[in-house]
């Protein structure tokens, strides 16, 4: 039977740490690109301009309809024909385009969740639609959008495990390689699952803390 040897973890701690940092780096860059994408297309989804609305819907629906794995492979091998992206930027852009569609929906519903009366009150005071958006609606949407945006970042950390298929170095790829040379799949994968859990769970605790504070400050 299998005999455990957990020393493989301690001896290769640097591999795990490097991988985890790379995972965070890729996820952070991806969300930084995804947020403007999401804001643009999220506002597009409720824009009065038919064409903009159509484009935004197509983007959101297609991206949300295709598995990330397939999207990453597609971006890397198909888009990669025309743009020289490389593994690193290919994976960041792949994740960003993917997350962007979800953020667009977050932004859209954040705006729509602001009660209708707010827009009516602003308009009744003589504000134009644009002014009402800028000064009244968006500041309120922003507060609503922050928590789901943070959750999206947690999702992204998990989703980034998939970029190992397009050869971008991060925690999962490092783990695969370590398993390939150490043959200690049980120990390595258990520890990798633990690292992901620690990263995402501690982040979600932080988010919950700030959410509570936000709720309190509004009461």
């Amino acid at each position, binding site marked *: 039977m299998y005999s455990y040897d957990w020393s493989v973890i301690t001896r290769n701690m640097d591999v795990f740490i490097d991988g985890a940092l790379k995972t965070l780096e890729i996820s952070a860059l991806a969300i930084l690109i995804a947020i403007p994408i999401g804001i643009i297309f999220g506002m597009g989804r409720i824009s009065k301009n038919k064409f903009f609305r159509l484009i935004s819907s197509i983007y959101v629906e297609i991206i949300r309809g295709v598995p990330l794995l397939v999207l990453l492979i597609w971006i890397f091998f198909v888009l990669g024909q025309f743009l020289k992206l490389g593994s690193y930027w290919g994976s960041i852009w792949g994740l960003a385009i993917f997350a962007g569609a979800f953020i667009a929906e977050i932004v859209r519903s954040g705006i729509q969740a602001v009660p209708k009366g707010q827009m009516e009150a602003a308009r009744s*005071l003589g504000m134009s639609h644009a002014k009402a958006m800028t000064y009244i609606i968006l500041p309120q949407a922003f507060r609503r959008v922050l928590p789901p945006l943070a959750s999206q970042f947690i999702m992204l950390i998990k989703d980034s495990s998939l970029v190992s298929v397009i050869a971008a170095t991060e925690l999962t790829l490092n783990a695969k390689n370590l398993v390939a040379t150490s043959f200690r799949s049980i120990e390595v994968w258990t520890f990798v699952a633990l690292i992901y859990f620690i990263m995402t769970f501690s982040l979600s605790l932080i988010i919950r803390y700030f959410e509570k504070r936000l709720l309190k400050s509004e009461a």
Partner: protein
Amino acid sequence: MISIKNVNKSFGDHHVLTDVSLEIPKSNVVALIGPSGAGKSTLIRTINALEPINTGEIIVDGVSIHDKKTDINVARLNIGFVFQSFNLFPFLTALENVTISPMKVKGLSKEVAEKRGKELLTSLGLGDKFDSYPSRLSGGQQQRVAIARALAMDPQVMLFDEPTSALDPEMVTEVLDAIRKLAKDGMTMVVVTHEMGFAKEICDEIVFMAEGKIVERAAPDKFFSNPDTKRAQDFLSKVLNH
């Protein structure tokens, strides 16, 4: 001041306003009463074009509100609107609620806007609430901030859609008092309300609506003592007879 001419309005198949006409002279106060679903809210909201109309015309202070050539954002400066549910901006303090539109729409400086805002809030009994957020205010206080916010644009006309219906009973008085004061100062007003005593006291005319039509118009004394129509009699008997 307000002239409503043959207005028709429907939501899809549902005809909500049928051929409504109404003249409201300057400094007059009109109470709009009637059963739920009569179209009171819809009518008052068409006056500042929060609700579009199908046919007809509405003229406020010489401006045709629903004319496509009218810049509605300019026209609305003349028309204050107070909502049943206050609709204060929750992320702004009472004073900021009152000053944001003068600053962003009229382009007043912060100092000027705040000076006027503080005057208005103080005159409405909110002199100690400038920096309070709406969630820290009682319903009555919130509604008074909303009135100050509308007044800050110096409108010629004020519209109120059930301004006290969302309030706890002991807060109704403070809001009605504020409206009373405006009436005394000669503001032209339309008030949708279920406060019959109040309507009787301050209004120049009662307009009774049912099923999208104006069923009866009368002076308050006449209306409450001896309404002409069966529909108004029924309504009054239900509302006054608790």
